[in-house]
């Protein structure tokens, strides 16, 4: 036994563990079926149990379409008809400017679009 080849031959001669016929058959079935589910056969009903691949009944599809259309129609109605204002009502105030002047001038402002400002400082 002087060379790698001889050692290799001796190693090759020992028995090896292997899969049982039953497990091997299941493996092959799974591999064959794995493609059947992902390839051209996927349109056939019953091959896949995935809910997103299950066929939808026609009546369910019709109800879903009708509900969607109704919702779109409500949203698309004109805001006045819906009772909602189209333009925010202006809130006008008058302030004296400048505040410390001898003869202040009244200036009108619309504060309808103002928002509170938070500084993050707690008192």
């Amino acid at each position, binding site marked *: *036994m002087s060379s*790698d080849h001889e*050692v*290799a031959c*001796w*190693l*090759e*001669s*020992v*028995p*090896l*563990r*292997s*899969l*049982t016929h039953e*497990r*091997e058959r*299941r*493996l*092959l079935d*799974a*591999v*064959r*079926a*794995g*493609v*059947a589910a*992902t*390839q051209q056969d996927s349109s056939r009903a019953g091959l896949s149990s995935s809910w997103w691949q299950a066929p939808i009944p026609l009546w369910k599809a019709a109800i879903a379409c009708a509900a969607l259309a109704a919702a779109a129609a409500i949203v698309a109605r004109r805001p006045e008809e819906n009772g909602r204002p189209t333009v925010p009502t202006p809130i006008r105030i008058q302030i004296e400017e400048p505040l410390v002047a001898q003869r202040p001038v009244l200036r009108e402002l619309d504060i309808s679009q103002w928002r509170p400002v938070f500084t993050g400082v707690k008192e």
Partner: protein
Amino acid sequence: MTPTHGEQWAAFYQMHRRALTAYAISLSGNEADAADLIQDVLLEMCKRSVPSSALPFVMRSLRNRAIDLYRRSRGAASFAASASLVDDACADLAERERAIRVREALSRLSGEQREVVVLKVYSGLTFREVAETMNCPIGTAASHYSRGMKRLSEMLMPVVMDMNAEVGRRTPVRSGMEDEDVVGS
């Protein structure tokens, strides 16, 4: 009618059954996990057709999958192919003895050496394919193999000589003259 991808990969498995199962068992440590490992990898492969040189690619996928699965369960221990693919539970006493010796010798190699020996001897890969599987240069794979075989030779040489001597004692060599004598008588 062209075969589906699944049928192609099933045929691929049947063609390379020995190489795939030997490596998968050495990676996972038992037949059941090896079957799951091969099935997972082949199902992943089924998304495409079988490429021209698929074996190293599949072997590497087996390795990566095994690392993903078993590294977590084995903690920080380094991952390497085991010597568990050798079946030392056979009925024949001499065969069992030989299997036990080989298994012991394989388990004494370093992880890389053992993996290369398994891939080369039991899976029948070339050095280029071994290097592709293990993601290392061809020279590194050849070096691991050479050192591994040297160590195996050192460990197994006395065993082989003993066993050959034992076999020689049990079955004395008969010469052609004896045969002629038997025929003549």
